[in-house]
């Protein structure tokens, strides 16, 4: 039977299946956590979920091959669908997150500090990985990932990336140019010849969306990893009935684990701290929820930015194809594909710059950056809470030292300056000279 589904249909179908699978697995995992089964099962359900994901991605790729050849997908419907699907994924994630942060219990024991420390380490690593993944992906997209390491290797990486983008564009143009050559091309039918997936891949490479488009999956992955690691770490508690009984009653295993880890660490270090503070469980819960909301804000903003770029790119491409077709119809044209590509870069560059000047683009970009800042603020605060019981320098304490040093540096500079001015005014040239020399000597770098 002929497959009449478009590229977009297949893509959305796959994404939705993946999301359904994720939700279903998540629910299963949470249920298992409540009934203790998952402690024995370890992270099998996570592995199963990953396996399902892979299977569906492979199927999508197969279906995509057919559709690429048929090129039946309209560019706009593809992009609209992409946007809608991203929103759906983001909203679903937020709902799942709310499921995580349900009611929790604040019970604690005093005989599992070591285990708690291990569990806490796992949790924090998973947690920080999630935050770092997002931050790095936004602040340092693929081509910039190792920038400032070594100019030559960066240059090669840029060259490779640029070549890939060029190649995608060349492949994308070929079927259309074939039609132009045989006179079968209609300037109004760009979408029939341009493979939207290839064009999206091209823009993804140019704008480093290779990482950006994977953000949602990274976020889902980080939360899944967090859940899985929680379960892995729980294995060591198999023989602690009391602990398991307590956990069975929790509606929010991840959050509770965090709370209990913090409590456990505090108790472990109680002899070394001047006093045992009350657990900041409520604050942790608030911050974790805030983090989820900011992730969601960031994804909406980033998805919106991508959508604008895809739409602008598609419109520009359409106009460019028409003008190219007209050139060939008038027996003009480009010297070679490099020539055409240069012109495309020029025209699309101007179009994107116009887009960047719009209020909508600026607003979305601001929202993305602001969400990233808020994620980092919440992460910083959480880290501070978790590290508080340890005999280590906290960020806030380091900041106090930095501020004191800064104030002292400024004060010393002002006093030196004042001394020079006063001695000069007093007309005591000898003192002024000495002060001047002392200051100059102090400021002149010493040879080691």
């Amino acid at each position, binding site marked *: 039977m002929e497959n009449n589904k478009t590229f977009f249909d297949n893509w959305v179908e796959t994404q939705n299946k993946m999301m359904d699978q994720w939700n279903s697995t998540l629910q299963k995992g949470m249920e298992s956590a409540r009934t203790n089964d998952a402690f024995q099962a370890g992270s099998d359900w996570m592995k199963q979920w990953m396996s399902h994901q892979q299977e569906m991605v492979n199927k999508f790729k197969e279906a995509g091959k057919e559709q690429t050849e048929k090129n039946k997908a309209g560019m706009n419907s593809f992009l609209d669908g992409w946007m809608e699907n991203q929103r759906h994924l983001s909203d679903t994630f937020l709902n799942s997150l709310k499921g995580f942060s349900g009611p929790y219990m604040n019970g604690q024991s005093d005989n599992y500090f070591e285990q708690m420390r291990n569990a806490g380490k796992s949790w924090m690593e998973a947690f920080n990985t999630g935050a770092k993944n997002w931050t790095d992906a936004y602040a340092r997209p693929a081509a910039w990932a190792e920038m400032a390491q070594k*100019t030559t290797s960066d240059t090669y990486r840029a060259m490779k990336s640029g070549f890939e983008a060029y190649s995608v564009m060349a492949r994308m143009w070929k079927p259309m140019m074939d039609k132009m050559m045989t006179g079968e091309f209609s300037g109004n039918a760009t979408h029939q010849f341009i493979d939207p997936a290839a064009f999206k891949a091209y823009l993804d490479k140019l704008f480093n969306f290779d990482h950006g488009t994977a953000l949602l999956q990274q976020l889902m992955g980080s939360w899944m990893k967090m859940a899985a690691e929680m379960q892995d770490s729980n294995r060591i508690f198999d023989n602690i009935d009391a602990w398991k009984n307590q956990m069975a009653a929790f509606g929010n295993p991840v959050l509770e684990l965090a709370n209990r880890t913090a409590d456990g660490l505090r108790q472990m270090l109680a002899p070394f701290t001047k006093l045992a503070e009350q657990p900041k469980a409520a604050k942790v819960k608030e911050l974790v929820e805030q983090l989820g909301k900011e992730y969601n804000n960031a994804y909406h903003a980033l998805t919106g930015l991508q959508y604008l770029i895809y739409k602008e790119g598609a419109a520009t491409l359409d106009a460019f194809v028409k003008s190219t077709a007209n050139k060939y119809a008038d027996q003009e044209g480009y010297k*070679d594909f490099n020539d055409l590509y240069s012109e495309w870069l020029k025209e699309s560059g101007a179009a994107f710059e116009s887009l960047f000047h719009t209020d909508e683009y600026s607003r979305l970009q601001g929202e993305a950056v602001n969400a990233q*800042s808020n994620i980092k603020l919440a992460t910083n605060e959480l880290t501070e809470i978790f590290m508080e019981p340890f005999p280590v320098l906290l960020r806030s304490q380091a900041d106090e030292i930095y501020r004191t040093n800064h104030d002292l540096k400024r004060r010393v500079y002002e006093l030196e300056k004042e001394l020079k001015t006063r001695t000069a005014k007093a007309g005591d040239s000898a003192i002024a000279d000495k002060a001047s020399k002392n200051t100059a000597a102090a400021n002149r770098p010493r040879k080691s």
Partner: protein
Amino acid sequence: MMNMADQFSNAAEIAARMADKMMAGYQILSEIDEIDVATAEKELIWQLGRVKVYHYISSAPKKSQTPTLISYALVNRQDMMDLQPDRSYIRNLLNLGLDLYIIDWGYPTAADKYDSLEDYIEMYLDGAVDAVCEDSGQSKINLMGICQGGTFSVIYSALHPEKIKNLVTLVTPIDFSTNDGLLIRWSKDMDIDALVDANGNISGDFLNVGFATLKPMMQAGKVMNLMSIIDDKDKLMNYLRMEKWINDSPDQAGECYRQFLKDLYQENKLANNELKIGRRTVNLKDITMPVMNVYATEDHLVPPAATIPLNDLIGSKDKSLYKFPGGHIGVFVGGRSQKELAPAVAEFLISRD
């Protein structure tokens, strides 16, 4: 016009040729050990923490007794002005007879996050000016500010006009009411407090991503150009020097960034004579020394609309506006810069020595 059939039947051949270039490029690039920039000879004369002042050593006869201190931006490094011997704004000015000093703002670390705009103006820049006065034996100096360093120079000149003989500003943003520049446009939608509170210092990588986005297709075009010069060692080295400079991006001290972005980019306080440095309010009318203001017609980082208004805002009677046909970077490395701009700047300063 090439036959279309030829064009695309040759597509594979073109791709293969480019792949060959890439392989060759990999080999050539892996054999390069060092990329030298900023090689003009200079001597360290002052240091306060990470901030340093250098004095350039030149054998050319001095035509100006007044020393000139160059204040570059905090973004990227001053090496741009001496990228390579045959494209060096610095060497050009030295050869034309100027006595040059330059500030190296260094690389702020987390410990420097509280360095404020006031610190940069009243401690680092003021200290640098005093050091140059002391080193040269002059009571006044010329101040030459580049981009953000130009904004610093304008602020300083308004607060301490008695120390500045002549002021030269190059591609310097002053009036941020325009939305011509994307950086100015975008900053208005950002929560700067959250950004600084979350990060402390603002990373150079963060800024670089923003700069790269301003001209989204430029990188692709650059790569195409690179492909064509990859086996030409001299051209490749030129390319790499520029890349090295672009990627050498110090972080921004948090508190300075906060005030610079909020007070200037978002609220345009400098142009409105409302900017506070410590307890003092900066009044641009207090700038009365001769001023040469250089702007670049194609500047996408600091648009002419942000630069040109300076001349109407200051109190100087002797002021000139220099129009440079080109972009932000071309002011320092382009052929026209070497042939026309550097001589014009030198002439302005020497004639007012």
